[in-house]
């Protein structure tokens, strides 16, 4: 078991989730309640990372953000930031990869709220933030937890994008899945075994929890 890799993966998953939570809540809610031209395109783009091969996403990120690219060079020269082969690049990549697991899922959940419930809350004069906090959030709460758990575990295991954008720098971009790959190449199967089993157990637990929440939430 490579503890620094596990720690790094946990950190990456936590930061990704923390940034995706408000994006998912706000974006999902907004898409659920608003209709606008090009909405289908936005929804398709949000869903795209789920079907796009991770290496393709990683490739484009690398090509756009690498220091050989105009955007990457500009970031480095003006802000002194290099995103590729750095933790921050992994965060950006993970957010993109996990968008489809948060935004569309929460959107469905907000769409399922009975409009009359919100109308009633408005009629009795509740301010918008209280409607959100006291009426909507309790109704999407289970979906939110389930989507968060899946996002978190998914980030722990992401491989293709991380390898492309992050390389394999111990303590910085060498996540759990990269460490497994690396240990296999080094004939260190004991270490690879332990890490693979941990990911297997966590993934199974996450899916089970998510299913259990969905069942309890059903009428």
């Amino acid at each position: 078991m490579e503890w620094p890799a596990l720690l790094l993966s946990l950190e990456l998953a936590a930061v990704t989730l923390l940034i995706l939570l408000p994006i998912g809540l706000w974006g999902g809610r907004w898409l659920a309640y608003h209709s606008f031209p090009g909405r289908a395109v936005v929804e398709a783009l949000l869903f795209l990372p789920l079907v796009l091969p991770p290496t393709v996403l990683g490739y484009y990120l690398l090509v756009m953000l690498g220091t050989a690219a105009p955007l990457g060079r500009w970031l480095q020269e003006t802000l002194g930031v290099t995103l590729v082969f750095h933790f921050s690049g992994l965060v950006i990549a993970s957010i993109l990869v996990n968008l489809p697991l948060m935004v569309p899922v929460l959107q469905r959940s907000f769409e399922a709220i009975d409009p009359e419930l919100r109308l009633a809350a408005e009629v009795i004069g509740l301010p918008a933030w209280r409607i959100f906090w006291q009426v909507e959030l309790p109704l999407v709460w289970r979906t939110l937890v389930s989507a968060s758990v899946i996002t978190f575990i998914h980030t722990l295991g992401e491989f293709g994008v991380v390898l492309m954008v992050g390389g394999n720098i111990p303590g910085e971009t060498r996540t759990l899945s990269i460490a497994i790959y690396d240990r296999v190449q080094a004939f260190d199967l004991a270490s690879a075994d332990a890490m693979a089993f941990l990911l297997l157990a966590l993934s199974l637990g996450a899916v089970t929890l998510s299913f259990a929440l969905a069942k309890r939430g059903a009428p």
Partner: protein
Amino acid sequence: MTNANRDRLIPNPARRRLVAAALALPVSVAARTGGAAFGEPLRVAAAADLKYALTDLVQRFEAQERVAVRLTFGSSGQIATQIRQGAPFHLFLSADERFALDLAEEGRTEGKGGVYAQGRIALALPPGSPLKADGTLADLGQAIGDGRLKRLAIANPEHAPYGERARQALIHAGLWEAIQPFLVFGENVAQALQFALSSAQGGIVSLSLVKAPPVQQQLGGFDLIPAQWHTPLIQRLVVVRGAPPAAHALAAFVFGPTGRAILAAYGFLPPEG
């Protein structure tokens, strides 16, 4: 929905914990990045043929100099590309000096560095392999014809120096065309060896990996391939521009007596051949 109902759904302690987690996380991240800035670890990228030799060498260096070193292994071509794309490596040990010299010419390194060793290639066989180590690859040629060979692993010749040398040796032996359908490519020479010993009948890899103790346990046998069959694997080390002084210290350590002794133990030839 009643208040009681709502409170059961989002219990207050859960809310408080969520807020606490939200506040604690950026702090932990800041601590991590801040900690790195304090005594920045030395980031070393090396050709995969050094996977065991350099790990050994760096352990001694860390104990002596009290510097933390982070090792990344890959194919030399892949690492050179990553450095061009902005990978933050301080020191690059290339299995083929061409990749290091190209970076030097582009002004990405501090000078041209130095040659630390020469590499050799070998045919590595898993235990119970139907192939024989006969010193000439003649048996390999026969194995193609009589069906004993199903897969032969080499590193990707496009960007891995050992893959390129394996290709040259197979061309020299007159087997390159015939062996095409049997080749399986590793991303780097370490992966080629892993393929060779786990799912192929053999592979052409670096002597330095074959000599490593963890590999010896998995190995059925090996056969050194004559050095004249391929262009020399001149291994050069360069310090990337802007690297901390510790990078030069590690470079000196590699060139010093301890470094030379460790490299020799793993089957590397001295720089002069």
